[in-house]
């Protein structure tokens, strides 16, 4: 059972850079442009564990197999994503599949990196994302509850 962590955050906070660093690959194109991730990129990473190395030594094993964890690079969300703003809705559905969410938050000043909001404010940024996810939930709950009601009357 490999666990999936989805990396989310506003555009241009460094998600693809982190994803590349984690998966040691250049699969995600990290470019300084909002919405450069179109399909979620999945990277499977071996989990480093010193104990495993010790055991290999003792048992004289031919092979060492780490357990793995998967990271999913999910495209930047913006305010209004649950209503289809940005590349919104489609990506919210990718988040549903993951076991945990990694919130990437911008905590650096830089002239070079475009920011969708005019200043750096990590708390506001997190609240935007959390609100979008809540709105998406709200919509899906409403839909499912309506469906249940219809079934009842049938």
């Amino acid at each position, binding site marked *: *059972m490999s666990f999936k962590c989805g990396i989310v955050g506003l555009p241009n906070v460094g998600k693809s850079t982190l994803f590349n660093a*984690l998966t040691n690959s250049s699969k995600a194109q990290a470019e300084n442009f909002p919405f450069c991730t179109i399909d979620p990129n999945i990277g499977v990473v071996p989990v480093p564990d010193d104990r495993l190395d010790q055991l290999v030594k003792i048992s004289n094993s031919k092979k060492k197999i780490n357990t793995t964890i998967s990271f999913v690079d999910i495209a930047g969300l913006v305010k209004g994503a649950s209503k289809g703003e940005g590349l919104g809705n489609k990506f919210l559905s990718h988040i549903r599949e993951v076991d945990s969410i990694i919130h990437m938050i911008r905590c650096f000043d830089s002239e070079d990196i475009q920011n969708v909001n005019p200043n750096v404010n990590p708390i506001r940024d997190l609240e935007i994302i959390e609100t979008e996810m809540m709105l998406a939930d709200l919509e*899906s709950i409403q839909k499912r509850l309506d469906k249940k009601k219809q079934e009842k009357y049938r």
Partner: protein
Amino acid sequence: MIKKNKKNIDKEQLKILEIALDCINNNKNLKILAEQFNNKILNQSALLSIKPKIYVCNVDEKSIQNGNKYTEDFINKFGDKNTLVVSAEIENQINQLENDEKINYMKMIGLKETGLNMLIQKGYNVLELETFFTSGPEETRAWTIQKNCLAPKAAGEIHTDFEKGFIRAETIAYDDFIKNQGWLSSKTNGKMRLEGKDYIVKDGDILNFRFNT
């Protein structure tokens, strides 16, 4: 029987949805769901707001060690239990270096551990995961399980036949295995236990499953 089960699940999911709806509409904390339902059932609801979260504050090079005013504000508000301060840019650079260079470079900029390692550790904590091992001359392998996992379920990670035909798990705690340098002496020194279906696997256990198919 199956139908009845399905109905129960539906009922439970319906309840989760209703509680979540109430929480969101009235600005209440969704944590109360985690108190009432177990993770697996909650996950089936596919709601985003209740998924376990890790916060990664992306900083520049000079803030790696001590953070900055942004991370301070953030941690003051959301706590440091699930928060990590990482520089994605630096991580990327570290990753392109060879092993020795990597260690030197990390020392130079005052980084004790790579972001990947920190993130994985946080992830394991947040998701309440543990590791058990299988070890022999052919291979040594780490397996991920949920905390408080019963032995047959752990066996099922390797193969479903192991779970179905589970008889016993030969079990050695990690420290005992290291102290006795392997299966054989652990056994002769009485450190190998035969555990049954009710055994809760501990983090680091070295296991060998006996099963019958």
